[in-house]
């Protein structure tokens, strides 16, 4: 493939940025990838399993893949997680928030091989409170992202792990 056509290569670069997937570079036609990139941008809007978000290694990429925007820290998001987790295979983490119009809550662990752990959809009428148990490979920041009124709010807490839960 040549880069003689400037318009074409610019489009191609845009798509690749949006998709954030290096694996696509070697593929022949970027036209074939266009709908793929677009669907991904709106993946959070439907009920489909967010496959790509669960492949991202960093928490920032996972949040971007899942929501298409970045989160700001908010003291209205309250996370309950232990200071020290003796067993990284089972770390109880829960979140409550006083934010209104919550539509989704996600849990991420920065140092895990895959940052995104769980993402919950909160329909109208369901309380914005979730408790679950997650695995942690090692000592890491745990990040909770709350989507409320179309914006993202987050809380971060470091949990020290003495025995890893992801083969670490």
């Amino acid at each position, binding site marked *: 493939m040549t880069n003689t056509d400037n318009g074409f290569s610019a489009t191609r670069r845009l798509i690749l940025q949006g998709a954030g997937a290096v694996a696509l570079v070697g593929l022949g036609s970027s036209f074939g990838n266009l709908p793929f990139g677009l669907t991904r941008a709106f993946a959070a809007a439907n009920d489909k399993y967010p496959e790509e978000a669960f492949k991202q290694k960093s928490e920032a990429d996972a949040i971007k893949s899942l929501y298409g925007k970045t989160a700001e820290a908010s003291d209205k998001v309250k996370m309950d997680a232990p200071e020290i987790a003796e067993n990284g295979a089972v770390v109880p983490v829960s979140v409550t928030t006083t934010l209104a119009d919550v539509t989704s809550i996600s849990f991420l662990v920065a140092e895990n091989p895959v940052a995104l752990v769980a993402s919950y959809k909160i329909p109208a009428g369901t*309380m914005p409170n979730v408790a679950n148990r997650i695995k942690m490979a090692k000592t890491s920041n745990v990040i909770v992202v709350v989507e409320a009124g179309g914006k993202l709010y987050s809380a971060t807490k470091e949990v020290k792990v003495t025995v890893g839960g992801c083969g670490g």
Partner: protein
Amino acid sequence: MASTIRVRATSSGETTEVQALIQHPMDSGFIKDSKGELIPPHFIQQLTFEYNGKPVFTADWGGGVSKDPYVKFAFKGGKKGDELKVSWVDNKGATDTTTAKIQ
């Protein structure tokens, strides 16, 4: 066969609190077995709770959720004696469904 899903849904009048415990290995694909070979990923990807035919809670899970996962949430409404439907599907396409009576 016994269900893999155990659910307790308790109504307080205004809201219903739901706790679910599911039997599943939740293998992330990053852990090695005793021979040093990677255990292939095997984890629940989606878990749905439905009340009156409408989803009240949906979970998208990765391999980072603990083995035999537990989740707790609450929703407004839900009458004692009504049914709550719970179902999951994993990355190998296996599924399980159960219904629980709200207490």
